[in-house]
């Protein structure tokens, strides 16, 4: 018990030979935690959060979990979200309008915020740029004002990833459970996650259904409103969960990070 719950130091996670304790882990996070998160994700996919006319019938609570997953599991959030969303889109397909590839969106969201939170900012930046490139690789993305579609959250995400003081500040406020500014740090991390998820979804929709600027540009304010509600709510849940996990001495990826 003690061994498997012991914090994994960066050195241990980079060890070439897989020790007994690392066999039960994925990216330094216990498989049990990842499985539990995946189960939470599936359960959350059955709870409608917002009935949203538009891309899918509704946005479910799993959108909130994706937003905070990176802060709890680090990059392993991508694995947990992928597993959860594969099962969820099988059991509850109404939240997924992208068919068998629907799991990619939550995976991208968890990956970007997880990498960012564990300070692997170069990788986080690379993933975010790949997601952006997938949008702009589509010829329709060069139609009038289509550049505004990825702008709202990508701008925040790119700033958090590439501006070191801002990135460090956000991470520190979360890691130290700062009573005044923690929510801003969580908000930035959730925005990064949601940005990646939102852009991946949009890119895939654009490639699959070829929607033109006449759809994307006029509906942009509407989507900004919907996404803002999701991000604010995920921030509220994220602050509660991060504080609760620390106070209850429950495992999380922050245990293995240098403070």
């Amino acid at each position: 018990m003690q061994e498997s719950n012991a914090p994994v130091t960066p050195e241990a996670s980079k060890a070439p030979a897989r020790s007994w304790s690392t066999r039960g882990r994925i990216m330094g996070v216990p498989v049990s935690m990842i499985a539990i998160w995946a189960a939470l994700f599936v359960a959350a996919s059955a709870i409608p959060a917002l009935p949203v006319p538009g891309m899918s019938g509704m946005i479910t609570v799993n959108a909130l979990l994706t937003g905070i997953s990176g802060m709890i599991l680090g990059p392993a959030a991508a694995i947990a979200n992928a597993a959860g969303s594969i099962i969820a889109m099988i059991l509850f397909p109404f939240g997924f309008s992208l068919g068998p590839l629907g799991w990619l969106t939550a995976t991208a969201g968890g990956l970007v915020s997880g990498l960012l939170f564990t300070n692997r900012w170069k990788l986080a930046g690379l993933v975010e740029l790949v997601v952006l490139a997938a949008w702009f690789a589509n010829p329709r993305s060069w139609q009038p004002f289509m550049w505004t579609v990825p702008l709202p959250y990508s701008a925040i995400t790119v700033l958090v990833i590439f501006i070191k003081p801002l990135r460090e500040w956000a991470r520190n406020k979360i890691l130290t459970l700062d009573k005044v500014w923690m929510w801003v740090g969580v908000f930035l991390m959730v925005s990064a996650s949601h940005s990646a998820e939102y852009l991946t979804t949009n890119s895939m929709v654009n490639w699959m259904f070829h929607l033109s600027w006449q759809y994307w540009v006029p509906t942009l304010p509407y989507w900004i409103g919907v996404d803002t509600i999701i991000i604010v709510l995920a921030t509220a849940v994220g602050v509660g969960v991060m504080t609760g996990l620390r106070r209850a001495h429950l495992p999380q990826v922050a245990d293995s990070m240098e403070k």
Partner: protein
Amino acid sequence: MMGTTYISQDTYLHRLDARTKLILMLAVFTLVLVFSHPLYIIALLLLVMIAWGSAKIPFGAIKTILQYFLVLGIIIFVIQVFFYPGTTNLFKISGPVPLLGFDGYITLEGVLFGIAMVLRLVVIMVVAPLLVMTTPLPEMMVAFVKFKIPYRFAFVMTTAMSMLPSIQNRASLIQQAQLCRGVNDFEGGNLLAKLRAMSAMLVPLILGTFRDSQVLDVAMSSRAFGAPAKRTFLLESHFETADYWMLAFAAILMVGGIVLRVMNLGVV
């Protein structure tokens, strides 16, 4: 809330190996993205419907699935009909609206492309549930492992599925507890109150289940999870003759589809 579940029947499709069905699903999914002409997508849809009928799954399930995507389907159709850059004018409905990029004409290509995109959505939405309704989830997990998906990932998926009922029970208990404390906006109330109620449920739910993860961790460690051993499975899956026939069919479909596309057929 509606969810798709396995429907036990003794049909040809049910008896196929889960891997075969996964490959068939991916073949249909790929082809529906390759083609953009409604006739070709209708052919694929017919194929899926034949499979649906032969699996003796009630067609009412399709209606339930599609009602969630009705608005999306309408949006896709309208956008393509009005704004697809076609050349064959069908009729004029207004003068040009340069601000919207609309020249006033509805074109044949726009209508065909609109129908094709809606049908694409329909095929995408009904093909995955068909797999789920004809394959028990444990068999699907074995299929994932047989596809060389890392065992730890497959374990995460099976554990998540097995823990789902207990998490849903816990969520229900938390909801009742919060109702006792006066948080009563889970169903009704305005949006803000509803969102606040959701937060009141999610935080204890996540913390509670994370506490459970420690118990699971102990159970896994005590059973030597991750120890280097040859793994065996309670369920074993093998390809039968029918599977080989269906795999050959999937291969012909894929190759034929790609050849047609290379010949510039199947596009508007």
